[in-house]
């Protein structure tokens, strides 16, 4: 009995020591779900190279912001930049862009092929309920030779608040004054028409189920689910297909403020896909050296594993600036 108790105590003490030893080499992160597969892959590769364990929990961008504000994690992650109120409660926090992603405008119209041409204002008018049928002259005019049915347009949106919605509505608000003045932009807005689906899965289910549906999903997700999506006219007047290359191009052509806290939609680069956004990691300048080491690694070696998982690597110029921001 007594010997057993001593044994137990010894095991417990040993366990505690072991845990604290591991703690020194573990960094905790939490936040956005969109980049989670990439961050988890990075954690594996980085762990093999350096023996530092990265533990990333995909709890959503809002959760990432809350956790880093409370300093409950070593780094947070978010698909949308923090707003001024959130910044005020987390003074000095840094936004480090990691990768870029494109948001595809997908549709399900029988007989209409992949890659129809659409412009930002037309997409905005669809979501405002001003364009209601697929054979509207504003759509057929952009696509001579495509035979559109007289089908009602069923706009679909994300019912849960998400970075994807933030990127999409930021773009629509930039190109349409009435969208800016009406629903506005944000992670979750008040849509005047349409149906809400929960998550990328919910929207893609609505898209597949409803003839005439239009919706927005991450391009990686659209490809995986074999959804048909549109080419969108960018700021230079070219119709661009969403892809890794056109997302990287968008990041290249965007004017970035010194704190990186900006949407890169409607980029000026000629080959840029206009509905593109960054995903950020949030850290405090006094973060542990292990965290900075991980981010530096992610922005250099780590970028190579991004395309395989359908994330667009950052262009050279942005990477250099981001590395400099971490070094400070």
């Amino acid at each position, binding site marked *: 009995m007594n010997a057993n108790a001593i044994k137990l105590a010894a095991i417990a003490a040993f366990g505690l020591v072991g845990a604290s030893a591991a703690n020194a080499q573990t960094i905790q992160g939490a936040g956005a779900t969109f980049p989670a597969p990439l961050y988890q892959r990075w954690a594996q590769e980085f762990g093999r190279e350096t023996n530092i364990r990265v533990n990333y929990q995909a709890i*959503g961008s809002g959760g990432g912001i809350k956790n880093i*504000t409370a300093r409950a994690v070593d780094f947070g992650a978010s698909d949308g930049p923090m*707003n001024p109120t959130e910044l005020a409660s987390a003074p000095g926090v840094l936004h480090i862009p990691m990768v870029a992603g494109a948001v595809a405008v997908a549709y399900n119209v029988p007989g209409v092929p992949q890659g129809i041409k659409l412009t930002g204002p037309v997409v905005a008018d669809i979501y405002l309920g001003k364009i209601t049928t697929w054979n509207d002259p504003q759509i057929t005019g952009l696509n001579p030779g495509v035979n559109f049915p007289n089908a009602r347009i069923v706009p679909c949106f994300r019912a849960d608040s998400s970075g994807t919605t933030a990127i999409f509505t930021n773009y629509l608000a930039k190109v349409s004054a009435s969208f800016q003045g009406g629903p506005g932009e944000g992670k979750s*807005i*008040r849509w005047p028409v349409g149906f809400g689906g929960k998550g990328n899965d919910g929207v893609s*289910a609505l898209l597949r189920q409803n003839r005439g549906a239009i919706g927005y999903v991450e391009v990686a997700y659209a490809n995986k689910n074999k959804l048909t999506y549109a080419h969108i006219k960018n700021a230079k007047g070219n119709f661009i297909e969403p892809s890794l290359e056109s997302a990287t191009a968008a990041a290249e052509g965007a004017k970035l403020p010194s704190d990186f806290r900006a949407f890169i939609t409607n980029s000026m680069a000629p080959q840029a896909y206009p509905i593109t956004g960054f995903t950020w990691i949030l850290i405090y300048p006094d973060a542990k050296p292990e965290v900075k080491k991980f981010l530096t690694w992610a922005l250099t070696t780590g970028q190579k594993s991004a395309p395989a998982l359908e994330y667009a690597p950052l262009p050279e110029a942005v990477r250099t600036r981001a590395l400099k921001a971490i070094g400070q």
Partner: protein
Amino acid sequence: MSEQAPQREITNMTPYLSAAIEDEVPGPPLSSSSGSIGDKIYGAITFLASLTIFVIIIWIASSLGWQSLPVFKQFGFSYITGSVWDDGQKQFGILPYIFGTLYSSFIALLIAVPISLGTAIFLSEMAPPWIRTPVTFLVELLAAIPSVVYGLWGIFVLLPFLRQYVMEPIGASPLGKFPLFSGFTAGPSMLAAGVILAIMILPFITAVSRDILRAIPRAQREASYGLGSTKWEAISQVVLPFARSGIIGAVILGLGRAFGETMAVTMVIGNQSPQTPSGVSFSLFEPGYTMSSALANKFTEASAGLNTAALVGIGFILFFVAIIVNILARTLVYYTARDVQGGK
């Protein structure tokens, strides 16, 4: 001799019958030797156990109320009567969500109660054993399916089915002119939410009602047959009135489940408040929004402060709506039970 026989029968029957009707658990004997310490410990433990539930409920209610206080302070009663929820404009009104929860649950009851009662009566009164056993098993199986599976089935099977065979034909017929069937027939709708909820609460109402019907003393039925009633008369005039309060309890259990159901409803209801000024629409074909769906959709990404307080407020109101409905149901059970006792 010939006079005594019937008399003996009556005196023998009466205690049996009344014991069956007043089906009460005998209380502890008043003059028991309650001095033993074991009894006291046992009593204390059971008392603590019952206290736990009480404490948890108070704890939940007070923390929900406390954390949602900012939104009630700022919006007051218009938080409950407002029709607009806009994170960007910091405007929070939850009437469409409250309405969606009540309306979708009401539709579910309308569909589920007749089916459940029919099933329960059939299983307990009429079905031969070779049907009763597999059907009972199937009903219980239905209760064990996780709600996300119902949701997936709802999206991929129920929605297309409803759209093709219910919504589109009605929408195209003269019935489509009625406000009840107005709106665009896309699939995700109040109707779909009501149907999926009905399927989900069906096993609960059926299983509980069946158990209650089976618990009714044989003597009740036998007495009724003895008086020359048919099977239908026995069921409708003796068995059902006797079981009425229990059946209402079963329906309330189903209603409680419909109120709280989140995942499956979120997947089929369309998650869009009706676009009327009040945020309320009785159309079955319009999409809607329930309180629990709103919580599930908005909570993970809510920013701290008023936005979170407004969401916790939904939980608080849902708590209260559930309590009010429960009190109403209790009252109903109380009065119907008194009727039965009075009518003996």
